[in-house]
């Protein structure tokens, strides 16, 4: 298998004085939308929010829709426990996000773009709005028919799910919709919509700036490019790091662990828990374990029961309650591990609970309920004794 060494990169936060974000827009709109789509597809860029859908294809599908009104939405409802990269990007290089949105608008034929930012980040709204106003002004000077607006959330994790986010923007409860239709066909206000994560949009503008070749040179054949990681937990150097994709988890632990790392939760509460014995043969990327960027490190002083309990409590509270598998499933998983811990249920009950997560994976309506199986099975399988005793 193709493997990469751990390498620090500086694309996202780097600043090119000779080609600022607004200049990237100016340069890009001289190309044809088809060419930009080809560049995006060629670069191999996949969504950086966690799901990993190829960005170029998403833009292409939306461009192919016939509609008078289309939208570009930047998903800044970063709520996954252990993730804080989007806040840093919004704070430090928001112009790159605006540029990505504008280029996307040019490609798909949209005149309005919205940034949906989580309510927990209200403290940055004022500064961000000022920067948006300046950028909108610059677009007007360039005679680009695109305007960026901002909407904020109000503390609901599930609104990071794209269709729940549309519902929320439409003034409704943030309950995910059935798919299909996908957002590129019917998104915000039922119109064709491209919704991309903050980081993805920055990469799109960077690919337009430096060309797809430089981006493609990073990473592996399945995971092109680099990715911003949010590192937290038992590490002396918690923070935000942009790393090349495709590295073995072991290299990551050597760099960031505190020497006593027992497990790493890759991808936040809805991600996978990797125990020490699997560090060597786990790859961070779409061919191994994909991640929205959350890397939580646990050392041997931590009880994995507490970790799992925390996650399940989180999901129980954040489940929108719309579909039964997720609403009841999360509650029963939480009650279930508590009962096993107290000895009210036999250890074998954990296997029943695992089957329940299997049902949730198939039957839950959205990614929230479907992904509870990831932390549950990976923690129960690898740390069964800690859950029981």
């Amino acid at each position: 298998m193709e493997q990469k060494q751990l390498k620090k990169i500086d694309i996202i936060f780097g600043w090119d004085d000779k080609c600022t974000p607004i200049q990237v827009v100016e340069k890009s709109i001289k190309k044809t939308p088809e060419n930009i789509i080809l560049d995006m597809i060629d670069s191999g860029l996949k969504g950086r929010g966690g799901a990993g859908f190829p960005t170029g294809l998403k833009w292409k599908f939306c461009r192919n829709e016939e509609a008078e009104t289309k939208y570009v939405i930047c998903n800044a409802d970063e709520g996954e426990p252990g993730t804080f990269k989007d806040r840093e990007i919004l704070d430090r290089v928001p112009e790159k996000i605006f540029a990505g949105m504008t280029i996307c608008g040019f490609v798909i034929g949209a005149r309005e773009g919205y940034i949906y930012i989580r309510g927990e980040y209200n403290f940055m709204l004022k500064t961000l709005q000022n920067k948006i106003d300046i950028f909108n002004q610059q677009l007007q000077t360039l005679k680009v028919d695109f305007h960026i607006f901002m909407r904020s959330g109000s503390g609901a994790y599930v609104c990071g799910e794209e269709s729940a986010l549309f519902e929320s923007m439409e003034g409704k409860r943030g309950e995910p919709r059935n798919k299909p239709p996908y957002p590129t066909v019917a998104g915000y206000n039922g119109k064709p919509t491209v919704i991309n994560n903050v980081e993805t949009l920055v990469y799109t503008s960077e690919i337009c700036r430096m060309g797809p070749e430089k981006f493609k040179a990073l990473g592996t054949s399945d995971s092109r490019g680099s990715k911003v990681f949010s590192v937290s937990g038992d590490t002396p150097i918690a923070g935000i790091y942009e790393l090349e994709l495709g590295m073995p988890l072991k290299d990551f632990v050597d760099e960031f662990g505190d020497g006593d790392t027992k497990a790493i939760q890759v991808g936040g509460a809805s991600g996978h828990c990797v125990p020490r014995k699997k560090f060597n043969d786990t790859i961070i990327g779409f061919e191994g374990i994909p991640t929205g960027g959350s890397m939580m490190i646990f050392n041997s002083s931590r009880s994995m029961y507490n970790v799992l309990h925390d996650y399940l409590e989180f999901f129980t509270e954040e489940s929108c309650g719309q579909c039964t598998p997720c609403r009841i499933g999360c509650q029963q998983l939480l009650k279930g591990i508590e009962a096993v811990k107290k000895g009210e249920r036999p250890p074998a009950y954990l296997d029943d609970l695992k089957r329940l997560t299997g049902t949730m994976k198939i039957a839950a309506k959205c990614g929230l309920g479907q992904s509870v199986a990831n932390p549950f099975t990976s923690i129960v399988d690898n740390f069964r004794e800690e859950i029981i005793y």
Partner: protein
Amino acid sequence: MTNTEVLIQELVEKHGRTRNALMPVLQGIVSREKFLSEQAMIAVARELDLSAADVYGTASFYTFLDTKPRGKNIVRVCKTISCHMQGKDAIIKAIEGHLLVKVGDTTHDNKFTLLTANCLGWCHKGPVMLVNDEVFPSVTPEMAIEIIEEFAKKTT
């Protein structure tokens, strides 16, 4: 007209009379009054030509759109895993002891409501708390009490 009705008028003028304006309008009310009273929700419904149940349905979905009376300052301590590992329990205990309330309660002088929140996005700088919209990362129990005191002084 009551103060709330005037505020709703202003918000509706600014954001428009469509359902798409519902969230910004409700957020505008909460940022000034800290919660949505029954009267406020009914007034919003009337302005936007929605049923009051619809407005309540949306409002009650969101953690930050409280429909229960809240104090003049809302303190939210993050309780998710990273902050848990970095000592959120000690922060909550210190604030509870200082304000003499439990999580979920409002002080007698109506100055503070103490709540917990799910991941606030500061996992590398926990424990973290929000007071209204302001964020305070890497707090210690002593700092938490100082911050609360600062807000108490500013609140009449």
